[in-house]
């Protein structure tokens, strides 16, 4: 409704006229009065992109240092031929700095047979021996080398970081011995009762967090959980089977969300 806001007009004129006045009297000021402007970059924090003449420097949108992160994910083992394995994963993470943190996670889940497995059994009477992952307890170091942003077509800005993880832990394999059947000679073997055995191994992975606000992120990652199982553990007749180590790679894709405290 037309209130005045013209102090600024006066102020700007003040600034401008002051400069104009000073410029006018400039030629009469002795050279001894010259004060050199200091190199301003020393005023600025030493940071990234020092080689650029113009930078954006502002408080970090999402800070992780000295914050705990907890969250949940749905993990899917992607490299299994005859089964689908789904795990619910809980994550607990502590970030010492923006780049370094430690993470503990535990997963528990189940497997479903793929159609191929059922078909082999029903049509060709072929029983496949399966390592069904039932749980994982893992600890890892997390290194976050990348922090970035991108703009959606709508103009909305999405911040993200990319992290690498490496560590180890225990993976539990559920042996159901459902592949055991009578031999061609007619002798019958009594397979062991279904049981779960744990194996130590290591993991590596890469992931990305998409920050949806200053406390919440969506996580997407891919991990390779490498461990070694003893083939004898899955054998229908363990008493007569020899120990033989076999390396297993569980490549998991994990999608979920986490909250920072």
């Amino acid at each position, binding site marked *: 409704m037309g*209130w005045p806001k013209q102090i600024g007009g006066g*102020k700007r004129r003040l600034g401008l006229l002051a400069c*104009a006045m000073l410029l006018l009297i400039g030629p*009469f000021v002795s050279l001894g009065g010259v004060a050199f402007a200091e*190199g301003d970059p020393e005023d600025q924090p030493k940071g990234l992109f020092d080689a650029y003449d113009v930078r*954006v*420097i502002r408080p970090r949108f999402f800070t992780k240092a000295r914050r705990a992160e907890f969250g949940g994910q749905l993990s899917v083992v992607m490299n299994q031929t005859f089964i689908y394995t789904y795990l619910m994963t809980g994550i607990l993470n502590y970030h010492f700095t923006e780049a370094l943190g430690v993470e503990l996670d535990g997963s528990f889940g189940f497997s479903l047979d793929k159609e191929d497995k059922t078909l082999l059994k029903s049509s060709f009477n072929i029983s496949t021996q399966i390592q069904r992952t039932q749980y994982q307890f893992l600890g890892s170091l997390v290194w976050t080398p990348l922090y970035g942003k991108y703009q959606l077509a709508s103009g909305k800005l999405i911040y993200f970081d990319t992290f690498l993880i490496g560590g180890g832990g225990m993976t539990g394999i559920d042996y159901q011995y459902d592949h055991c059947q009578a031999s061609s000679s007619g002798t019958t073997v009594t397979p062991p009762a279904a049981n779960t055995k744990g194996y130590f191994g290591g993991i590596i992975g890469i992931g990305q967090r998409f920050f949806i606000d200053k406390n919440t992120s969506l996580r997407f990652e891919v991990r390779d959980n490498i461990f070694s199982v003893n083939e004898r553990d899955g054998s229908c007749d363990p008493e007569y089977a020899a120990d033989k180590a076999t390396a297993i790679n569980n490549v998991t894709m994990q999608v979920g969300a986490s909250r920072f405290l």
Partner: protein
Amino acid sequence: MNSLVCHFRWLVRIVAVGVCLGAQVASANIQNVSALYSRGDYPAAASSAFQLYSSSRNAQEKLNAGFFLARSLQALDLPYAASRFYGAIVRQGPMNNPFFRQAFEQLGAINSTVSLGQAQIVQLVSSRGGGSLNSESIPGSARGFYFYYQGVESFEDRKYEAASRNFKAVPGGSPYYLRAQFHLGVIANLEGRHSQAISYFSGVASGARRDDEGEHLRASAIMNIARVEYETKRYNESLMQYGRVGRDSDLWLDAQFEGSWAFFMIQKHNNALGNLHTVQAPFFENRFYPESYILQSITFLRLCRFDETKESLEKFRDRYQPLFGELKKLINDYGENPRGFYKLVYDFRSGSLSKFKEAWPLFDALSRTDAFREGAIAVRNSDSELARLSRYGGKWASSGLQEELRDFLGKKKAVAADEAGRKLYRKLGTQRDYLKELSRQTEFINAEMLLNRVDALRASLQVSTAEKRINFIGGFQTLNLAQELEYWPFQGEYWEDELGYYVYNIASSCLAAKKK
């Protein structure tokens, strides 16, 4: 003779019977109006009331009809049309119209939601408009409205004492209270009472509503705090206030630009240049900040970066030299045609202007002024009510109400456009003088550089060193060592989210220049 007397007696009898019948008809009509109004049949109530209002010879019923008419129009969501009849009641004064009080209150209420425009209000409340009222007769709930506009009138006449008195009389609960406090802040500053001015503006900033108009008032108050701090050479405090102006505020870019002056004054050249980088970003290519190039050039000059100084001056010339031709044409063509000039600015704002392209930044600046905003609101509301009048075509056309309102709204629209056009045209003249002044300064800076009097020129730009030890990052924020920062390089591509956070990273070349 006898027959003459006889005839006269008959005539008196006929007139008396006629008056008596007329009074009965009128009385029946006001009851009818009242019944229609009570039933919520406002179109019919308005039509009947207008018939009575324009034809009744009974003064009391005419007054009643006028009030019913205004109320019915208001109930039909035609506030401007209603203001026509409320205004008529108020102009009659408290002694001559028993509805004076309610009418005044309703006008205040209408104006606080849909601005009626200063021209109409001044006619009602000001001594200039000839409608001088005794302040004792103003009803309590309309005192804010009345005293505020009395204050505005005195303020515009530069009678600050009288203005202060009126603004202080605006009651605390009135919707005009914060605007009055804002004016009091301006007056306090004009009178050199800076801390009191800040106190007024702070009160406005904290009390403003959370709607669009409230946010604009809050941002204006914060800007003024920053300006007062700047005037009193408290540059850090000034920068802190500029940083409070929200990104979505219309004043945000002003804050960026004015903040660069504050950075310049405390020798934070990289911050000053960073802010100017935002102001000159392509996002704002149609915004009018010619002074930004001058400030940029003298900032580079302080850093002994003479090539960049020249470049800034050239950019100023390239951008604003072509404007002078169009500016001259606008000044010549529209001096006698304020409505046409308002229309030009309006067309620019609505995106339909295709001529005077060089002057678009100026039109943008004009279209952001309160003068334009107020005019545009009045024109838009008048148009909206004019369009809605056709709904009530039949009844209102036969009673003459349609024509009466069309005429009133048409005139209101024309007056609003004329008034806004006149103010905008005056601002156009001010901007021309401002550009001329800036242009003279570019020539002067250039000439001094060519004459090798750079040291003296630089020395003349005396700035404060007292607050230099405080360092700033982007967004007017002081550097806090415990804070995690993010850095993004500027690689020639502007990102919208980065605007307002740029910081230059260049060193002074003065030592090198001195050695030469």
